[in-house]
């Protein structure tokens, strides 16, 4: 169904309309000195509450959400976002609390902070967490700052380089640069795993650490992780774990026991908090006992029955005005308490089962570059039969026509026609079977009527976009649109 609604909120504006009800107090009016005042009012829309509600309801219907349909987006872990999380995280006893209230009036929130970090520490095999980082990339930034602070404290000032495999997410090298490191990129093996020889070649007393995603972005577990950790540690570096793919390991293994010193965890992936169209997420950063005092300020500790803020002795410093995305980590807390020790450990195995089930069911028609069991996600390198010229992009767009979100495409960069599929544990066999059937149908169409696939999507509210035009003639706000 193509929705025809295409108005912007500004198009609805009629002078004099309002969408709120507030009775002003009878107080003397005050004004700023003229030269400190703004000259003219911001041109905001003038609309009624109902205008706003209907507008954004219509706008929302132009979106695909997790509740709309299957979202097999690799490395993004698009789980169901439970309703109980929403209800309980938004209780007024959490949402109506000022961040600078005295500690005796925020014991419940501090307890949630503390217990969440304790559970994350247990699940990942580390000593302590800070929930302050606002997102995964922010957690990476915190982790890299900790690496730097650690070496500086030891007066080991030559360590200016971070090793990042070429299969890593773009945030890894970017975070390293932003935290003042030089990035040494090493070529991966064909399966995206670390090439031990390449690693040995770059290890030196200038290496501060190695960033690794495990399982990697091709869905492959680093089987040599212990050797890698020994090599990096032996050279004096630290090991950073990008928790983007932690879901695979729930119930099976802990990064801390593999030799990782620092991790970040994306609560909006592994711990079921909503993606929100691109945030707010939450990216707690965790460390070994040796690194606890470097955590961002403040941390929450328990003293007797009381929870209290504490400034870590060698803290990397403040990473935000307050204490991270509280409303997000409360949701993760509710999720952890819902699954508990009985169910949390089932998540990894079932997520891995789902991924392998899709992989095995489609590998006769899609090119499977890596054999053997995958972890929670896997990569197809486009169609097996590429004779009609149908590319991964085309398949992704055709899936939209059938009511599925596309997989992650053209990532990891090591496979030219990469199509990364991650079903997560929440999808039923029926959903997977339907998806498999549609994937086969698209593969069949790619041969029998390739033009339909190459010009897809056909049934979405807009079709393929001219992205070049958007860059060449940037229209970035309503006023630009009017003066176009």
């Amino acid at each position, binding site marked *: 169904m193509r929705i025809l609604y295409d108005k*912007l909120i500004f198009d609805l504006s009629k002078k004099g309309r309002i*969408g*709120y009800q507030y009775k*002003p*107090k*009878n107080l*003397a009016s*005050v004004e700023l*000195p003229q030269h*400190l005042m*703004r000259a003219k009012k*911001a*041109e905001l829309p003038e609309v009624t509450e109902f205008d*706003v509600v209907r507008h954004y309801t219509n706008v929302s219907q132009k*979106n*695909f*959400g*997790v509740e709309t349909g299957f979202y097999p*987006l690799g490395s993004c872990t698009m789980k169901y976002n439970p309703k109980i999380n929403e209800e*309980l995280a*938004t209780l*007024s*006893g959490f949402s109506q*609390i000022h*961040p600078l*209230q005295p500690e005796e009036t925020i*014991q419940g929130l501090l*307890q949630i902070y503390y217990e969440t970090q304790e559970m994350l520490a*247990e699940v990942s095999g580390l000593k302590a967490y800070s929930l302050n980082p606002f997102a995964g*990339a922010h957690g990476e930034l915190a982790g890299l700052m900790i690496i730097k602070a650690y070496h500086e404290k030891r007066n080991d000032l030559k360590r200016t380089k971070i090793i990042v495999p070429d299969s890593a997410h*773009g945030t890894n090298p*970017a975070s390293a640069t*932003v935290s*003042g490191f030089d990035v040494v990129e090493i070529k991966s093996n064909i399966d995206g795993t670390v090439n031990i020889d390449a690693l040995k070649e770059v290890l030196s007393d200038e290496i501060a650490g190695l960033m690794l995603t495990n399982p990697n972005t091709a869905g492959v577990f680093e089987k040599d992780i212990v050797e890698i950790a020994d090599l990096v540690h032996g050279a004096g570096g630290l090991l950073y774990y990008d928790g983007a793919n932690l879901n695979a390991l729930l119930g099976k293994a802990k990064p801390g026991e593999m030799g990782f010193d620092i991790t970040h965890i994306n609560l909006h992936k592994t711990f*079921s908090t909503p993606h*929100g*169209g*691109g945030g*707010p997420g939450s990216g707690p950063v965790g460390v070994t006992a040796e690194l606890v005092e470097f955590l961002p300020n403040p941390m929450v500790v328990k003293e007797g029955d009381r929870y209290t803020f504490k400034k870590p002795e060698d803290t990397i*410093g403040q*990473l935000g*005005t*307050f204490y991270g995305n509280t*409303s997000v980590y409360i949701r993760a807390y509710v999720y952890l*308490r819902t699954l508990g020790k009985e*169910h*949390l450990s089932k998540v990894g*195995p*079932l997520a891995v089962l789902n991924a*392998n089930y899709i992989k*095995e069911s489609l590998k006769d028609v899609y090119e499977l570059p890596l054999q053997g069991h995958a972890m929670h996600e896997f990569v197809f390198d486009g169609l097996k039969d590429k004779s009609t010229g149908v590319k991964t992009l085309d398949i992704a767009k055709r899936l939209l026509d059938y009511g599925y979100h596309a997989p992650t495409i053209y990532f990891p960069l090591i496979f030219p026609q990469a199509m990364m599929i991650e079903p997560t544990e929440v999808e039923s066999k029926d959903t997977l079977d339907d998806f498999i059937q549609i994937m086969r149908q698209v593969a069949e169409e790619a041969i029998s009527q390739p033009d339909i696939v190459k010009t897809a999507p056909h049934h979405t509210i807009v*079709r393929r976009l*001219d992205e070049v*035009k*958007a860059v060449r003639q*940037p229209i970035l*706000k*309503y006023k*630009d*649109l009017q003066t176009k």
Partner: protein
Amino acid sequence: MQKYLPHTEQEIKAMLERIQASSLDDLFSAIPKSLQLKQSYQIPEAMDDLTLTNHMHKLAQKNKELIIFRGAGSYDHYTPSAVKALLSRQEFLTSYTPYQPEVAQGTLQYIFEYQSMVCELTQMVVSNASMYDGSTATAEAMFMAHSETRKDHILVSATMHPKTIEVIQTYARYRQLTVVIVPEKNGVTDLAFVKENHSDKMGLIVQNPNYYGIVEDFTGVADMIHEHRGLFIINQEGQSLALVKSAGEWGADIATGELQSLGLPMAFGGAYIGYLATKHQLVRKMPGRICGVTEDVDGRRAFVLTLQAREQHIRRAKANSNICSNQSLNALAVTIYLSLVGKEGFVELAEESMRGAHYLYNELIKTKKFTPVYEQPFFNEFVLKANFDLERFNEELLNDGILGPLVLDGQKALFAVTEKRSQKEIDQLVEKVVAFK
């Protein structure tokens, strides 16, 4: 079974057969045995829905909901109900970053509307799709200045929120940049110091209204900073943008700050939303996502993430920022809030905050227990000096369900008043001051 885990035993068996695996454990043969967990997690057992609901309500009750006269970066404002209701729509709440624009026009459209509104508020030319919070947005503005000027030192006014300064310092330190603090003079940025020291700096960052609530005068500052090609960066809180001269009007290069005031609850400090807007010339230095307009193959108007060559997933180690996820859903909250209050209401509510604050200021002076500290214009926060024990006073207020002012240097009190405070609540606070022994 568990409510989020759908497979029956039979289904698991059938799936394993398809995979040709003998068991779920079999799927993990790539993980060395020595690394595989030997025991279950040492975390609490699962709670059923009723138990968990009770547990969370109890935790919520361990936090005290108060009548708030404190700001300092988080403000207790009135938010119309439609904001929360619309935010809970799953199409907004559960969707991913709009990388598949054909099925994410909803997200892209509201980002475009958000950018349009931020540009209106700040009088700048281009806004991104949001940042984590006001302080990190300001630190990223410093990165822009560094990238643009290739200089390593930046001036930061001492009158900014101390936590914002700390965040800037954290970001600066690791990137080998140096923060030079501009001293404060009678509660405002010492512009004489700026004049003396700016020529070799990448720019100046100020906050307006500043940490003390004072509306600063930046006459001539933009020209001065531009003389040596530095950037002028103004951090300004959301509601004040209705009344206080905006970054664009001051001739600043980057407008940044916190928008929590506009539709988001205090929520113990997060999740909030930072904004960042700038001039046309700096758009390619901008961090984060930007949404633009284009057409589809049928010539239909459509929205799409654009100018992505700046971003980490393309530029990797050469990117100027590592930001990926931002605070998208909160950008929607701000957009809906600003639509509801609209052009006139945005100003009216800000005036109410300002009037309430000035009323409280005058009434407190009348008690003779407070004296002015700075004789400067202010918006909705102000500092007074108390001639009594502020900490003990605040404790007493707490017993009456009131969060009093933030205490600065022992004797100074930083008050905040928003439109949400009734006259009765303000009068009650004044009475408490009068009665305090």
